[in-house]
């Protein structure tokens, strides 16, 4: 129980209380989103670039883009947690934009709900399990924007890395 306790600590309420972080996060996500629409990778995923495997957040930008277009099935395929992250994003936006008193009241309500339901802790645990399952190939892996370092090395050694990458 002592090991599990830190994971049960409310985190969404803490995020709402970090108003400056929420503001910067929204701004940065907007810039990265605009870059994505223009075809500019402004936050390259180093993990995917090197290993060729999806990191826990890989596919989220494409899923968010699909969500904005109203393509629910496509969003689910790219990242099933995009819906939940959209809700978290709304809470972060509330933390960033609401007046200090209102944001504090919202954070207090969310904290009480988190302590009571433990849902946010369960959410993180399920998300981590999902990420592991996706790495192991039990879920659709979003395609990489370019061959990874690992496949590039294979290709240079004549191991047919590119053939594997395109299959």
């Amino acid at each position: 129980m002592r090991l599990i306790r830190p994971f049960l600590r409310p985190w969404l309420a803490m995020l709402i209380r970090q108003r400056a972080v929420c503001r910067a996060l929204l701004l940065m996500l907007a810039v990265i989103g605009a870059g994505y629409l223009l075809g500019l990778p402004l936050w390259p995923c180093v993990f995917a670039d090197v290993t060729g495997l999806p990191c826990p957040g890989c596919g989220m930008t494409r899923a968010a883009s699909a969500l904005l277009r109203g393509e629910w099935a496509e969003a689910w395929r790219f990242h099933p947690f995009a819906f939940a992250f959209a809700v978290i994003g709304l809470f972060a936006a509330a933390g960033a934009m609401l007046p200090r008193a209102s944001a504090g009241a919202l954070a207090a309500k969310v904290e009480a709900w988190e302590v009571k339901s433990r849902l946010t802790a369960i959410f993180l645990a399920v998300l981590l399990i999902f990420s592991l399952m996706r790495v192991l190939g039990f879920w659709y892996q979003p395609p990489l924007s370019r061959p990874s370092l690992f496949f590039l090395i294979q290709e240079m050694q004549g191991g047919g890395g590119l053939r594997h990458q395109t299959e």
Partner: protein
Amino acid sequence: MEPTSTAAAATGVGLASLAAFGVIFIINLVCWIKVLIALFKKEGAGLGILGILCSIYAYIWGWMKSTELGLKKTMVWWTIAILASIVLSFVSSAAMVGVMASNPEFQKAMQEAQEKAQQLQQEQPAPQQ
């Protein structure tokens, strides 16, 4: 430029970017882990995990707390690594186009994929009004 020399040049750029990617990856990873340790200690496991899932959050949090927690140097290095990886991603993408264009195996795979996509498009029923 001859196709073979194009391929050789692209392979050269690819090799150089490969080495640079390795260095940037290590800097990125070390800075990220350092911030994550501070994040776990200061904010607990929930926001720590959020920092793993969304490295942008860890990055912003790191900058916000850089003075308080003495993370300024780490954050400057992390920023340099991110900017370098953005620049490198453009360079290596250009190099990859060259490598792929000169690889007959890849061209064949691309052709097969295009044919398959066309076939799938033809098989799809027309959208109903």
